Structure formats: C-alpha cells, structure tokens
C-alpha cells in the first residue's frame, strides 16, 4: 500500500484562488457588455434601468414618438406594481391582458412600450 501523497495547505489555497480568479475573469468577460451598458439617469432611471439595455430600448422608443410620455400617475402605479411583482411578470401579464402597443408594426406589451418611450427620453 503506497502512502497517500500530501497536499500542502498553501497549494490548496493557491489553487482555490486560481479558480476564483478564472471565474471572476470569465464573469467579467461574459458580463462586460452588460456592465459597460449605459445606465439611464434622471427621473425615470429607476424604471428604465429595469431594462437589459436602455440604448436598445431607446431605439424602440423612437419608433413610438407619436405616443405621449406616460403620465406621472401611470408611472407611480407601475412603480407600485413592481414593488409587488417581478418586472418580467408585470410585462408578461400586460401581454396576457392584451395591453399592447404597436411600434412600427412590432407588437409590444404596453408597459414595455412605455419604458421604451422613457428610455428614448432619457437617451
């Protein structure tokens, strides 16, 4: 029976740090586009930054120029809804209930369309 090879605590620590560093670098690489995305500022930032990419949303928002910017009370209601339900569920529910808007032919949940309008305002 051969003796079990000894692994030093230092080697284990270094290996662990190596794995962690690799994971961190990988994460940064994968998430870089998202991290580098512009974050919206201003009065609508809390809503617009719910979107993955406010710049992309602004492109959609510009196709909705004929629609008015959502009223303050509508935005307050949206903030209240988001306090109770995940953002993605609010958007899906909007679609399920048929609250839809058309952006140059694209059929969108009305709440999402409103956020796109805000993104265009904030851009």
């Amino acid at each position: 029976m051969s003796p079990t090879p000894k692994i030093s605590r230092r080697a284990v620590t270094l290996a662990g740090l190596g794995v962690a560093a690799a994971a961190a670098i990988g994460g940064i690489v994968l998430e870089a586009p998202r991290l580098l995305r512009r974050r919206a500022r201003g009065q609508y930032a809390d809503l617009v930054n719910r979107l993955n990419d406010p710049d992309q949303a602004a492109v959609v928002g510009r196709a909705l120029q004929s629609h008015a910017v959502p009223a303050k009370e509508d935005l307050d209601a949206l903030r209240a809804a988001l306090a109770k339900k995940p953002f993605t569920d609010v958007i899906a529910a909007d679609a399920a209930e048929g609250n839809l808007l058309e952006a140059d032919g694209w059929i969108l949940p009305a709440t999402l369309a409103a956020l796109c309008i805000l993104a265009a305002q904030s851009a």
Partner: protein
Amino acid sequence: MSAFIDARTVAAGSIIETDLAIIGGGPAGISLALALAGSPIKMVLLESGAMNFDGRTQALYAGAESGFPYLKLEGSRLRYLGGSTNHWGGWCRPLNGIDFEARDWLPHSGWPFGRAEIEPYFKRAQSLVEAGPLVYDRGSDWTKEIGAPLDLGDGGVYTSWFQFSKTRTSFLPTHFGRRYADDLRRIAHLSPYVHANVTGLRLAPDATSLDHLDVATLTGNTFTVKPRITVLATGAMENARLLLASNDVAPRGVGNADDLVGRFFADHPIPRDSATLVVFDGRLASFYPNNTTIRGAILRATFSPSEDYQRRHSVLGSLTTVENEVTLDELGRAAVATAAGALGVDGSSAKAFSMGCGIELAPDPDRRLTLGSERDALGMPRLRLAMHVADSNFAHYRETMKELGRQLLAARLGMVRLNQKTHADWLSVMDWGNHHMGTTRMSADPRKGVVDANSQVHGVGNLFVAGSSVFPTYGASNPTLNLVALTLRLAAHLRKVFA
C-alpha cells in the same frame, strides 16, 4: 372504352338528347361525372378546350378589369380539360363551421345549411384531389415525431393544418383532366365532348325550365344539346357570364330576376410578407415553413383564428403561413432584445420569419361581373369585373395577427411584427389565390341567392350550378376540396331527382 368526341366533327345542326348535360370539364364537372358513373343516367360532358392548353380557346376568357388592381381575367384560370386544376397549387383545407353561419356583424353571410351537410362528402373529395388520409386539424398528433407546434396558450389563434394534393407519379398536384381522362372514357353512358363551347342556355317560353343548349366550336360548327337536366360547372366567372348572356327569354339573364348573378365575386387576397414572426429560442418545427410528408399525408402548419375568437371579435377568416427566414433591421433587433429581456428569456438565438397569408373577403355586392360590349370569337359578350376590396378586410387580418403577437408574448415564446398597414402597403405586396367564388350565390331565399340549397337555379327547375360560384361566404380555405365535396352532394341529389 369510349373516346372523347371532337365537337368540330359533330354534324352541324344536329340535336343530341341526353338525361344530364354537364357544362365544363373542370374539377366540379369531372367530379360530378365520376360520382354518377355507377348510375344509369345518360350524360354529356361539354368541355370548351381539349387535352392541352390552346391559345385561341384561352382567349375566349379575356375581359376587362377595373377598380382594385386584379389579375387579367384570362390569366387566372385555364380553359381545357381539368380547368384551373391545371395550374393549382394543391392546397386543401375544409371550410370551418363558422364559414357557413349567418353572422350579424357580416352582412350577406350565411349558407342555407351548416358544415355537417357536406361533411359526409369530404372523404371522397379528399380521395379525388389525392391529398392522402383526411388529417387536417389532427395534424399535431400526426406529426408528433417531427416536432411540436408552438404552445400558444390560451387565445384566439391556433395552429391549424393544410394538406396538399399529390399525384402518384409526380410532385405536382392532381390535374383533374390528365388524371381522370381515362376514368371518364370508361363511363359507358357518358359522352364527353371537347372543343364544345356552350354559347346559350335556352329557356322554355315560360322561363321555368331550360329547353336546350346552343353549342359552338371555334371552327364555326354549331349544334344543340337537349338535356332533361343541366349542371353549369364552368367556374365562377363563366357561370355568371353564361347566365347573363342567355337573355333571349329572360331579359336580365337566366336566374337573374333579382339582379344577383355576377355580384359578390370573391377571391382570396394572398399578400406576401404580411407579418414577421420571431421565436426567441430560434426553434420552429419544420412543418411550419415546409410541406412535410408523413404517412401518406403532405401537411403544413398554419396560424388560424379560432371559430370562437372570430365570433367574439367579429373577424373574418385567415390562414397565415411561415415562409422564409429573414434578417431584422436595427429596430427589429432592438425590439426583440428588449422584449425578450423584459420577459426574462434569452433572445440571443432568436430567429425571424416572413409570413404570408390567405384572407377571407367580406361579401360585397359591388364586387361584380357584368357583360361588356366587346365580343369574343364565338360572339359571346366579354366580361367586365368591377373589383372592390374595402380596407376593413385587411383590418380584420391585422386584428388576428395582433392576437397571435399577444399570445406569443404572454407565453414568452416570441413576438410578431405587422408589416403592412396602409392601403398602399397592402397593394404593394398583393397577390391573389385565383379562387373565384360567389357569383351565383346560394340562398334558400330567391331574393338573396341565385341557387337554392340544392344548387338549383331559383325558378328554373332543371338547371343546377356546381362549383365555388355558389359559395355565399368564402372562408379562408382554398376552394377546390370544398367545391368537390359540394359537387358530390349535388350528385347525390341528382340521383334522387332521376330516380
């Protein structure tokens, strides 16, 4: 086996007596003759053309069109044995139950019977068009091994199914003339004539029955057919033309006391690129964009409004097919990325497809065929078509596609773009199904229809009409399978009449 008789060789001025005259050797006329093959009824089939395309015969179809841009009248049909099945695409689908219903939101709607009345004839009709086993909306079960349809969840649009005609030796759909010529020759009590143009439906002096038919050839020969019963089966344009032009006894034409013959002409607009479908995960079963052959059936999935949705939202029928994959522009890419992200799904593999469609038109009395002043080589007045398509027809379709978009978003599966909006948009992508319908519409009420529920011309006891000209409303389904089923029903009725 008897041969086809060349009408040019018939002794001029002769009178041919028969039990039944079938005018027209298209899918309706041929199906009727085949359905009566086992009966003792002595039949004459009168076909204007012969076995192949002939320019002079085809030119008899020329006419004039005005209004909403439409096809040349001589270009959207074929005048030789087999009729327009010589250039059809083979798309088949039975009409839905709602297509027969009177709908209060749809003026002039309602057949004198429901779909159940022609249901028993679909099996034989399916066999005649050679579309394999009768599957249609069992298509999802039939194609399980290939893939699953999109799970659209609750909503007004569902995946429905087309089937396709296919001959045994060719990838082309069944051309009735070529396919059934020998079967016609085998019917001992059928005399099939080619080059035989009926130029007049001559009524008895009291106008309550048809006395005889005038027949002419392009070589100048003329003779008479004297049948006990006649079935007019020359397509929705020529049926109207022959009825209107036969105005020697009834000044407005045969069956036209209420000025209905030629009105309510319809076709299916089939605009290209009507909408864009996006699936977020990029996965779409092959039976959406392609015809799929499985266990003897050629199937293709299509998006259709459910009957319940049509009733609740007052929308006309439509059938939307997925066509080719397309590349999205900047706005499209932004819309997909934004929507997928907001729904919490990965849209990085999304694929987009152009969609096409067939749209049902609302019945419109002003979409109309009348006789013009010009005459063809046989001296028959040529047709004039006043085409009229209200934008509301397209609005119905947009409503249905919006519902599909809603369902896809709610199911977090994908999304839809409505590609056409204005009148000019629709015109720029317009094509037509060549599905002529409606000009001798069916109604139990003589003031509202040209033929009754048995396809008999109101007031003319021995004259019947076969084909899609009798459809009072049109559905979105392609007409051939349905007109064949309806013709088989007429055959069953005629057996009783002759019994």
